[in-house]
């Protein structure tokens, strides 16, 4: 068994393997497929409860992942943010000096969540400018009608 505590390096290796088979597009194809079929619980919660559903979804997953984060739900202004101070996944990849992580590892979060949330009427922004320090910021807003 690959323990769930050993999954992140295996996940990074998966992206490297897919890229070796079919270039970056093969990795993106996998991410799209995963987003469409694996993130049903986020999709259902966001569709049913809006940004409060996002808060509920990440309350569980980020706690189980023992992340160092601040999550804010501003219902009045319809903004949800996750300020990821230390991502446990990227943090591990940076810490494991024997392993060469997939260089675009952090992009999967952007694609996976954007693909779920935008069709539900949300704007999604992921700031990955500090991902080399295992930090990032996700902002989700209700799309304003034109």
């Amino acid at each position, binding site marked *: *068994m690959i323990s769930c505590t050993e999954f992140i390096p295996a996940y990074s290796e998966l992206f490297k393997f897919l890229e070796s088979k079919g270039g970056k597009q093969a990795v993106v194809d*996998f991410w799209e497929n995963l987003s469409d079929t694996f993130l049903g619980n986020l999709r259902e919660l966001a569709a049913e409860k809006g940004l409060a559903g996002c808060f509920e979804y990440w309350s569980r997953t980020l706690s189980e992942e023992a992340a160092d984060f601040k999550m804010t739900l501003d219902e009045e202004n319809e903004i949800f943010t996750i300020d990821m101070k230390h991502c446990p996944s990227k943090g591990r990849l940076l810490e494991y000096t024997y392993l060469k992580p997939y260089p675009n590892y952090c992009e999967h979060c952007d694609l996976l969540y954007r693909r779920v949330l935008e069709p539900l009427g949300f704007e999604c922004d992921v700031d990955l400018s500090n991902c080399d320090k295992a930090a990032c910021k996700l902002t989700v807003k209700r799309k304003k009608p034109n």
Partner: protein
Amino acid sequence: MKVMERSASDNQYLHKDFHGALAYAICYLDRRYGEQGIREYLEQTAINAYKPLIEAVRKDGLAAIESHFKKIFEIEGGKFKLTNEGDYLTLTVSECPAVCHLKKTNQLYSDKFCLTTVVVNETVCRLAGIETDCQYNTEKGCCEQRFWRAI
């Protein structure tokens, strides 16, 4: 305004949904590249991600394998038994925590999911001078993994 703030030490690192993501990945690889693709991926993972375990097994032999499985099965709350007879080590898993979680959460998986055990074990052991075999029943979530020093 609702705020939730946590530091890493507030929670135990145990996100069992990762088993679902891995099971999904195995099904995906099977569709795209077949069983050979799954094996290639897992071999690469074993070589790169399990480097410290390979080194520990080279140094300490079966004791390192025993210690590795004891640690991960205890963390995950699996039902298992380790029998060390000196030259032979047997890991009997009566309830695999990964398969148990996949079933409980209705995740997509196939019997090829257990290749994650078979191929990683085979690769780690091959590189560390240990022989291994594994008999498994994915549906029942049980297996018997045996390890012995290569002659």
